[in-house]
């Protein structure tokens, strides 16, 4: 509870004594490149294989004489939109971006770079963390959209190449009884997860004390805590919104 209170105070401190808007715009652009563009490769690889594996496994487990083939792509579509793209990619995001944020801020803390900002009269938490959170909120939903597209494409490719489903059946299944609410649901999840990863990782890194060992611990804690928070939030959002 003490740590949770500290986390809330940390979030409040991001909005105090803010710098010039131009400063935040420049920093947010830089962070967006680091957080978004640099994550594109790993997100693409994970998504394509996620879709491919879902297709093959659904075909293996579900399809029989009484169940039509298009069910495969229907399952891939709903699983991708509802769960795989927002949640699995958020966990990948926590591993890549979260550990990077915690490591960067932790190193800045132990090498007194954060103290240097404070002595200059700059609100270090706002200057360093706010752009990271804004960049994560901007970039993660885009990554989720890309991920969903690639996962469905991966499923199509795997299904067609292994002859478990034809292209026409796959497209038919994608369109069959599509619930449009799944898209805003995935977007809400992506905003919540982006905030969780960026803020928890920043919090862990910002309050690092000690040396290199503690920076490593902060990175690990950032990933672990982010993953737990993502799973809890995933359940809560499903309960509330579905």
């Amino acid at each position, binding site marked *: 509870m003490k740590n949770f209170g500290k986390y809330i105070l940390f979030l409040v401190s991001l909005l*105090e*004594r803010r*710098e010039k808007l131009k*400063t935040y715009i420049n920093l947010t652009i830089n962070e967006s490149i680091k957080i978004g563009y640099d994550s594109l490769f790993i997100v693409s690889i994970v998504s394509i294989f996620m879709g491919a594996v879902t297709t093959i496994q659904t075909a293996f487990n579900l399809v029989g004489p009484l169940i039509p083939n298009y069910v495969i792509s229907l399952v891939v579509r709903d699983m991708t939109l509802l769960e795989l793209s927002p949640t699995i990619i958020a966990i990948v995001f926590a591993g890549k971006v979260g550990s990077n944020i915690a490591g960067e801020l932790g*190193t*800045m803390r132990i*090498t*007194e*770079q954060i*103290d*240097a900002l*404070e*002595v*200059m*009269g*700059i609100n270090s938490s706002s200057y360093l963390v706010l752009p990271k959170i804004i960049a994560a909120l901007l970039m993660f939903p885009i990554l989720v959209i890309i991920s969903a597209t690639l996962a469905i494409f991966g499923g199509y490719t795997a299904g067609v190449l292994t002859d478990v489903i034809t292209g026409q059946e796959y497209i038919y299944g994608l369109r069959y009884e599509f619930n449009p609410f799944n898209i805003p649901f995935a977007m809400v999840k992506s905003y919540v997860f982006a905030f969780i990863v960026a803020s928890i990782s920043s919090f862990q890194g910002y309050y690092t004390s000690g040396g290199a060992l503690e920076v490593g611990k902060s990175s690990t804690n950032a990933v672990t805590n982010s993953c737990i928070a993502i799973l809890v939030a995933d359940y809560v959002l499903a309960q509330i919104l579905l």
Partner: protein
Amino acid sequence: MIEIENISKSFQDKKVLHSISGKFEKGKTNLIIGASGTGKSVLLKCLVGLLNPDKGSVLFDGRPFTESDKSTTTQIRREIGMLFQGSALFDSKNVEENIKFPLDMLTELTENEKIEKVNHCLNLVGLDKINFKMPSELSGGMKKRVGIARAIVNDSKYLFCDEPNSGLDPLTAIKIDDLILELTQKLDTTTIVVTHDMNSVIEIGEYIMFLHNGKKIWEGNNKEILKTKIKELNDFVFSNKLMKKIR
């Protein structure tokens, strides 16, 4: 001038600073000295606001710092330049960007004016043509000089240096000491240096405050320190063979 009155600080149940008072004058190099673990760095952090003292006050030219609202504290902090023990240069920025950083954040100068100031400060600390080098490409002494350049670039009224020559060879350490003394006189800053280096004490100690176990037990200058009769101070000053021989 910076005045401190009855500064006390504890961590959990361990009292680190015991009611320390003193005056650090403008245009002088003021030294806070003492053995490791005596509270020098804690006192320095209380002075610049990185730690809040449990009791006591800090006044910058008569302006209360510790009990002020955030805007006053921020205003005073913007008049402070600080050289950190490890230089604390921003890894992701080159030398020019590091020195220019306070100007970018705190002033409305044009880009040309900022670059001019950066080059002037680099010139003052005796460095040229290293504007585009990254901190990882610099030696320890160069990092300290860049750190000093960043500390003075915004026309700081108060200059704080935390162990400015730690990790440096004796020759470079003396150069850094001379540089701090020269800049203090040239820019008329109130300079406070935390050190346990006896060379610095002898070279630049115009005012010296000696801390022992978190208490101020002596103050004076670099001439008086060699004649002191206080045991703890004598043990500190004449701890090495060279100093014993000089005595």
